[in-house]
């Protein structure tokens, strides 16, 4: 993997990876590509239905609550916190990958633990948000929120919201599980014996992808 990259190198002449990455990392990229199409399909179908509707609930009205703040209106408040947590956990993941490059085992452990904490914090926030919306009467098939123009809304809004954020939350959950598996391997010294921490990088790619998807979910559901 440490082959020097020269300008005139014949990448397709065989004998080495034409992508200059290991098989596992390339396959992680292709998996993420396919996952991008899955999320893309979900978000585009959401967009189609929204374009089809004459009116749609105002996100600032729906997502206005913050834990412990009762009935006070804090539009965007809670989702900003969730976004911050996820970006932060992405940073700690890069720092873990970075420490892995330099084979600083202790730092890899430290940053992976922070990443796991970030992931769990994000999931807890989402659990609170879902529970809160459920208490307000929102769920698959039922939508208590009015359209922005005051007319009654269909359940399209809640169906898409719960399906897409749920699918994203499922990805975060499996990301946390993968991080825990990786962390236990780091602690056991598996990667130290192997001589490299590439597995941390591969899981890192997945984790950043989850962050990437959230950037789009955030825009589509809370901003637009």
């Amino acid at each position, binding site marked *: 993997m440490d082959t020097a990259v020269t300008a005139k190198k014949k990448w397709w002449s065989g004998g080495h990876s034409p992508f200059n990455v290991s098989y596992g990392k390339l396959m992680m990229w292709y998996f993420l590509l396919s996952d991008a199409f899955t999320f893309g399909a979900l978000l585009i179908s959401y967009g189609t239905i929204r374009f089809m509707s004459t009116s749609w609930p105002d996100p600032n009205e729906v997502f206005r609550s913050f834990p412990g703040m009762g009935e006070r209106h804090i539009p965007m408040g809670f989702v900003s916190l969730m976004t911050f947590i996820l970006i932060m956990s992405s940073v700690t993941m890069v720092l873990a990958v*970075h420490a892995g490059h330099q084979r600083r085992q202790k730092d890899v452990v430290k940053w992976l633990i922070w990443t796991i904490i970030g992931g769990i914090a994000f999931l807890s926030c989402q659990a609170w948000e879902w529970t809160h919306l459920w208490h307000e009467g929102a769920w698959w098939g039922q939508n208590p929120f009015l359209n922005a123009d005051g007319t009654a809304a269909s359940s399209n809004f809640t169906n898409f919201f719960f399906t897409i954020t749920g699918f994203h939350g499922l990805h975060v959950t499996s990301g946390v599980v993968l991080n825990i598996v990786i962390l236990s391997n780091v602690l056991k010294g598996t990667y130290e014996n192997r001589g490299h921490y590439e597995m941390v990088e591969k899981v890192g790619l997945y984790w950043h992808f989850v962050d990437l998807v959230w950037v789009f979910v955030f825009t589509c559901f809370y901003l637009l």
Partner: protein
Amino acid sequence: MSNTHTDAGQDVHVADSSTKTIWRTFWILLGITVFEICIALAHMQFHWPKLPVNSLFIILTIVKAFFIVAEFMHLGHEIKNLIMTVLMPLLLFVWFIIAFLADGDSWKNMRKDLAPGTPKPVEKVQVIEHEGHHE
């Protein structure tokens, strides 16, 4: 870092510069997000026209996506072959988005224009004829 032995000196230097890049990327992402939230809150207050505000949100989202993929996922530092094999298939999204959103829009127009009780556009032609008769 001060007690690292000398032969690792260059590594430490490299480490510092890429740790800097990581944090710089973090501040860019955070800054864009805070800016987006400010715009959204200001939009609630002042009710700006929707199209420019939404276009701004989408552009900023793509900028954030670029930084996550290029820096955090390190794709910006890979060779061109890998960048292309990941990005080229994503061009399909250009067609997906245009085709499906246009479909949704035409669906909405049909539901509005062809709903029961909606006056038919033909009547407009009759109105013009009426005006002609009066002359």
